[in-house]
């Protein structure tokens, strides 16, 4: 129940009140009755008025409400589904979303969609379904009210009006019934309503304009007001043509599709498009329909577009005309920039720079080169094809030549450019300064020259270039005395010779010359001819600088490295590039590897490597190999001599002992025969071969007398052996008398015995052999015989001899002589005792024990200092 105040309609006298139901009235039946209230008095209720819903039995089909509603985005909305009689209800879908339905009546179910999003092209479907099929449904269109803005009206023909605006936000409502409808000053805007263009036209200009945009969700009013002359938007010029085209100008004509333009004061803008020659030009005048285009370039394709606007109260530029093409005519080329470069005193070349499109004024067909000299009258012309940009010059007799060069195109010949041969100056004749670059550019300056009436010429060419060289130059006005040579004209790592010439009517005069690199780089090649030269413990490294084209920068010096296995060890840094050698001192005998690198301001090159093996010097080798051993030997001999001198008594005793007289019973004072002056028994003892002789050495054996000499010579050389010395001594002492007894090995001993009959007689049967003397233990007498079969067989031979000698067991004098015998030390007590000539036993033993005495007793005495 709701209480409202309702006034009486003054015309009809009726009361009316409208109630808005949130639920469509068709969903189910709605009843209402009314009563009047005046302060405290209340009337009776009126009869109940019922609006039947569509769920009454008379309407048995399925239905959904509301249908085709248009609502704003974000709104809430209730839908109801009236289910067909005898049909079940399953669900209500809002789009793809299953909604929670509320049952309103026996057949009516309702849902409420909240915050509805914008619909698709054909609206949002709300479907009511049974278990089997779709019962019914509805479509709701959710969108936005119109968002149009910015109404602007203008005239194209100086009479009618065209109003346009921005569409604004998409309403999302595309069905015809919900689209935005437009009216302009109350008239339907057909163009916009058909959704073709967002503008409206009006046949007559009005001072103010109102656009109303309306859709089911809202209305927008857009306003604009302006004078016609302030809103002139001209149409595009038509029939644009060039009526007169010259090399440097053209006349352009066009017409207007609106006759009213002919009296309009207008301004026009021409856009000229050409390769690097774009420009925009303005023209003005009443009803402008023709202009003269000045300052065009010959032989250039121009594309012209034209548009105009009202000069007074300019609103905007009009539409552009269709592009129109103009090709200007050709003209004679401009004069060439000519230069002459001398690469020797009588040869050179004339260069000229190619003409740009702006200067050629048409495709060149060739060049004409003429030269004249003082000796020849007139000019000698030569025609060259257009691809040539140089011409060689030869001075026949050293006189100057003037060369004139002109370019030719179909329109004619250019003005000739002349140049006179400059005097040739070799680089070596000049003191050139080093030119340092600044950011890759050379900044040149020079003293102004009074003779430079035609300015200066800066010439740059790669240093040392010959033949076809990339000569470049730039002519500088007379007023300038400086020039910056940009890096884009230079190549990094190339040394340039830069010269400045004073230009006058005659030959150019060289003012100054530099050399420099725009950008120094590391040398591309290492030093050349790197050689090592050993001098004692020093190594002299020498090299030559790499060629100039490989230097790629001023050589600032060299670094010398000693290459080890893993790294380079810097041993010297030569900062003077003129120094191209280095001495590495104090090297020991070994192998070395040296690396020499040249460096510029950019860094070092890869380096040249050389290896050397240090060897001993010849003088050193002579000293160490010969003189030192000789000196040592000499010193040893002196020492031996001194020792022998100091021990001369002992030596005498050792080598010339006093032989005691034999102690025999009887009278032996008167000899029965001549005294056998045999040598000292020491020598004979030494001659006997020891069974423990070193088999690796040649054994001693009886040799014929004629071989004795050579044998003794060999022994002398063998300074390492002590025994040959003894042999030598024996030979010296014995003399020739004993040699004749060594003819036969089997009878040697007997012969010896024969020679020393006395001794043999003296000791026979007195001395028994010592059976315990090692290999010689069981042997009988064995003369100084040595097998000569070989070093590996002496023992066997000896055993065989021993077997034979066993038959003659008895006196065996030499068998006990063992230099290396362990018992040798026990003989020390007997050293110095005279011994029998043929026996190893001391004749006067100091010890009671009778043991064999080594034959080197004297040597032991010598070592022990005994005398």
């Amino acid at each position: 129940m709701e209480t409202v105040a309702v006034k009486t309609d003054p015309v009809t006298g009726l009361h009316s009140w409208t109630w808005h139901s949130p639920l469509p009235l068709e969903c189910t039946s709605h009843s209402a009755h009314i009563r009047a209230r005046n302060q405290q008095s209340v009337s009776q209720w009126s009869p109940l008025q019922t609006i039947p819903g569509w769920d009454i039995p008379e309407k048995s089909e399925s239905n959904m409400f509301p249908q085709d509603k248009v609502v704003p985005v974000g709104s809430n909305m209730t839908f109801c589904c009236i289910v067909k009689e005898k049909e079940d209800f399953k669900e209500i879908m809002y789009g793809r979303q299953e909604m929670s339905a509320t049952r309103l009546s026996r057949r009516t179910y309702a849902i409420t969609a909240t915050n509805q999003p914008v619909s698709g092209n054909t609206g949002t479907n709300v479907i009511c379904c049974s278990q089997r099929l779709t019962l019914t449904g509805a479509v709701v269109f959710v969108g936005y009210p119109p968002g149009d803005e910015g109404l602007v009206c203008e005239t194209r023909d100086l009479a009618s009006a065209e109003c346009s605006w921005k569409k604004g936000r998409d309403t999302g409502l595309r069905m015809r019934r919900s689209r935005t409808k437009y009216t302009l000053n109350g008239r339907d805007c057909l163009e916009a309503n058909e959704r073709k263009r967002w503008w409206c036209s009006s046949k007559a200009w009005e001072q103010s304009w109102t656009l109303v945009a309306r859709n089911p969700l809202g209305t927008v009013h857009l306003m604009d007001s302006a004078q016609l002359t302030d809103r002139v938007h001209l149409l595009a010029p038509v029939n644009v043509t060039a009526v007169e085209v010259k090399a440097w100008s053209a006349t352009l004509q066009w017409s207007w599709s609106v006759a009213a333009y002919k009296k309009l004061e207008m301004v026009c803008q021409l856009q000229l498009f050409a390769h690097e020659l774009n420009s925009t030009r303005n023209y003005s005048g009443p009803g402008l329909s023709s202009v003269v285009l000045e300052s065009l370039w010959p032989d250039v394709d121009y594309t012209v577009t034209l548009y105009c606007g009202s000069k007074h109260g300019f609103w905007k530029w009009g539409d552009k005309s269709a592009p129109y093409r103009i090709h200007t005519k050709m003209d004679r080329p401009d004069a060439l920039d000519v230069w002459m470069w001398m690469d020797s005193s009588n040869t050179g070349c004339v260069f000229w720079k190619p003409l740009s499109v702006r200067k050629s004024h048409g495709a060149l067909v060739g060049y004409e080169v003429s030269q004249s000299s003082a000796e020849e009258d007139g000019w000698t012309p030569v025609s060259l094809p257009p691809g040539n940009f140089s011409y060689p010059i030869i001075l026949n007799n050293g006189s100057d030549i003037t060369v004139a060069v002109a370019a030719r195109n179909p329109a004619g010949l250019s003005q000739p450019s002349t140049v006179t041969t400059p005097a040739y100056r070799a680089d070596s004749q000049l003191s050139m300064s080093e030119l340092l670059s600044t950011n890759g550019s050379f900044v040149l300056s020079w003293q102004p020259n009074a003779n430079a009436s035609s300015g200066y010429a800066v010439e740059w060419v790669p240093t040392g270039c010959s033949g076809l060289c990339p000569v470049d130059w730039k002519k500088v006005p007379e007023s300038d005395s400086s020039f910056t040579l940009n890096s884009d004209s230079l190549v990094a790592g190339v040394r340039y010779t830069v010269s400045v010439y004073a230009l006058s009517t005659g030959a150019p005069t060289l003012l100054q010359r530099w050399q420099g690199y725009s950008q120094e780089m590391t040398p591309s090649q290492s030093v050349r001819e790197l050689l090592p030269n050993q001098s004692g413990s020093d190594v002299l490294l020498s090299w030559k600088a790499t060629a100039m084209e490989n230097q790629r920068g001023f050589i600032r010096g060299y670094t010398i490295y000693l290459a080890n296995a893993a790294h380079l060890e810097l041993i010297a840094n030569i900062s003077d590039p003129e120094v191209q050698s280095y001495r590495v001192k104090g090297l020991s005998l070994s192998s070395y590897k040296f690396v020499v690198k040249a460096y510029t301001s950019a860094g070092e090159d890869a380096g040249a490597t050389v290896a050397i093996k240090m060897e001993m010097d010849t003088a050193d080798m002579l000293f160490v190999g010969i003189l030192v051993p000789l000196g040592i030997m000499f010193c040893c001999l002196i020492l031996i001599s001194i020792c022998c001198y100091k021990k001369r008594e002992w030596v005498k005793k050792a080598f010339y002992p006093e032989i005691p007289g034999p102690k025999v019973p009887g009278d032996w004072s008167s000899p029965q025969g001549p005294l056998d002056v045999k040598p000292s028994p020491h020598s004979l003892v030494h001659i006997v071969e020891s069974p423990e002789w070193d088999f690796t050495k040649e054994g001693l054996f009886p040799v014929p007398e004629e071989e004795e000499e050579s044998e003794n010579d060999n022994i002398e050389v063998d300074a390492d052996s002590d025994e040959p010395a003894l042999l030598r001594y024996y030979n010296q002492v014995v003399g020739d008398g004993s040699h004749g007894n060594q003819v036969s090995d089997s009878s040697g001993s007997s012969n010896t015995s024969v020679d020393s009959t006395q001794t043999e007689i003296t000791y026979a049967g007195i001395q028994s052999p010592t059976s315990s003397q090692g290999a010689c233990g069981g042997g009988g007498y064995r003369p100084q015989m040595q097998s000569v079969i070989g070093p590996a067989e002496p023992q066997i031979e000896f055993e065989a001899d021993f077997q034979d000698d066993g038959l003659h067991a008895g006196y065996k004098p030499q068998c006990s002589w063992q230099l290396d015998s362990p018992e040798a030390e026990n003989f020390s007590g007997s050293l110095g005792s005279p011994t029998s000539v043929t026996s190893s036993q001391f004749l006067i033993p100091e010890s009671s024990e009778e043991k064999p005495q080594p034959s080197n007793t004297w040597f032991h005495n010598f070592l022990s200092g005994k005398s």
Partner: protein
Amino acid sequence: MEGAADSDTPVPERSAADRAAALARLLHRDCTRLLELYKEREDFLSQHAPGGERLVTLALCPEAPSTAEQVGHVRSALRRCMELLECLIVREVEEMGEELQGEYESLRKTVKDRLGHLLHSTGALLENGEGGCPPSPPMQCIQGQDEVEASDSFAAKIWTYKVLLELIHWTDSASQTLHVFHTEKHGQQQQQQLL
């Protein structure tokens, strides 16, 4: 597959009935695709199939003993389908304008054109206009909206769906009937040649 022949074998001249049958098969595929596109736009149709009466029936037409008469009946139904399709296009353009030009709109026009060709082809096959039975119920484009029980947007969508179903059904029937018609004609021609 119509038109598919080995390039090495000579292609015999196809009869008008054969060409019409092939066109009907092609049209059937087009209509099937058109319904798929419509279901993509109105996705509720894929979830819950709407019920309701058929739009084109031949229930009131007499029995057609001969194949030629059956072809005539099918052609009548196709003619009704053509009327429904034209009405459909008018209504959609009126509602949505001509801004939307997607695959559905393009194929919709193709189906209309090919259906016109098929009606022309089948008309040429029938020498005496056999089977000229008008299908039921009779319709006019405006009345067509009444047939879907409402003039609201949802009813129009259901009606469009039914029209597309009728197109699929009758183009399929046409392809089968025309194939039989072509087979019989071909057999008769061979018998005549043998005689």
